[in-house]
């Protein structure tokens, strides 16, 4: 996707929050490798901060701190399938009428449930282009340093491949996690090159590459699909 030339305006709109999901993710990914853009965003966040400081307070649910503490301690297991079903219901509502997508979502749910890791530190991500275009479902098991990814509705053009990248500030340039196979499950790949905090907080992005993957080890273009992990287990 092409980014507007006006980075100052882009930084301002990112901080304000008016960008759509794809633009937002693209900016979030770009700021990791672009200190000028990152500084412009930080400056805008600081400019607008008095609004947040002045927000009228609302009391959160009483048990929330206990739930946060439980997470810090690695507490109760959340049922992955329950989390995913809720999200699938939401995507279905958003993608009503899109039969292919709905079918893909059902398959993704089945996939995630079938491959549900049994050890703690489970995460899922949905990589998407727009708010109602889920394209890949991804599961990550931090303890096992494994992930798997499955296309929901995405299919690369003839002669091209989708390649998955992990993007995090501490990694510098995006690191390839491999080419995503055209059909079904890509298989499990090791995440042992990265520390767990990086894996958990990273942005995952899919780019369109020449068949077989990027020849340079760097993404050839801007991410087509992006997503972040959602914790579904301790």
């Amino acid at each position, binding site marked *: 996707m092409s980014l507007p030339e006006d980075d100052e305006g882009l930084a301002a709109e990112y901080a304000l929050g008016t960008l759509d999901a794809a633009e937002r993710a693209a900016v979030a990914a770009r700021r990791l490798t672009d200190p000028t853009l990152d500084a412009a965003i930080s400056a805008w966040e600081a400019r607008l901060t008095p609004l947040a400081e002045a927000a*009228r307070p609302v009391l959160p649910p009483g048990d*929330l701190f206990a739930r946060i503490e439980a997470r810090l301690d690695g507490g109760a297991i959340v049922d992955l399938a329950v989390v995913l079903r809720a999200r699938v219901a939401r995507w279905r509502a958003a993608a009503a009428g899109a039969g292919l997508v709905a079918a893909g979502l059902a398959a993704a749910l089945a996939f995630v449930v079938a491959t549900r890791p049994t050890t703690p530190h489970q995460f899922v991500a949905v990589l998407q282009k727009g708010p109602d275009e889920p394209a890949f479902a991804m599961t990550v098991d931090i303890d096992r340093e494994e992930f798997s990814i499955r296309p929901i509705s995405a299919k690369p053009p003839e002669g091209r491949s989708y390649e998955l990248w992990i993007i995090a500030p501490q990694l510098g340039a995006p690191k390839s996690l491999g080419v995503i196979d055209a059909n079904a499950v890509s298989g499990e790949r090791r995440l042992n090159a990265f520390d767990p905090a990086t894996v958990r907080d990273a942005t995952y992005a899919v780019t369109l590459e020449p068949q077989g993957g990027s020849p340079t080890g760097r993404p050839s273009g801007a991410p087509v699909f992006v997503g972040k992990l959602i914790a579904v287990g301790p």
Partner: protein
Amino acid sequence: LCFLSIHRQALAVAFIARAPHVDSMTAAPTAPDLVDLLRRVAGRDRAAFAALYAATSAKLYGVVSRIVQSGDASEVLQEAYVKIWERAGDFDAAKGSPLGWIATIARNRALDEVRRAKPMYLEDMPEGFEPAAEFEDPMGRRDRKEAYAALMRCLNALEAEKRDMILMAYYRGASREALAAKYKAPVGTVKTWLRRSLAQLKDCLSS
């Protein structure tokens, strides 16, 4: 549905009534030192983390629950505090206010959530939007009150409609699309308005 029924006059009055009297304000005596708490949280001090939560959670929930639906708001807030716990060491007091830093973490999480959930429609807005109902005079240190006063002065220097768009975006997470629907303008026009208004705001704040 009536997300955007703003009564212009009432709004203007509310803004004027809320003009902060900076000179008469001093730091609230009971306000905890968030910079110190964050420093201790960075050192894995759980008591400090509990104190930080007690001091800031209602404010952060105020920010988050206006942007995402209620069920997801507590999830977003949980994720935000876990992140604050993990990232407290990144906070740099020289670069901004501690409340601003943690509010930005929570707000970005909320925006990510609401954008990836589905496009926002006006129908999703459970209640009318009254900008004046979104905020109050900030508690706390004098420098924050001055920053707030300056921002409000510059926001009020914008055309009322443009100012409202910025407030709706900030407090409710309104996207360009939602604003375009409200103001019956093409999305591209809304983008131009936003960028122009933000540039104006920046000029005003640096003058």
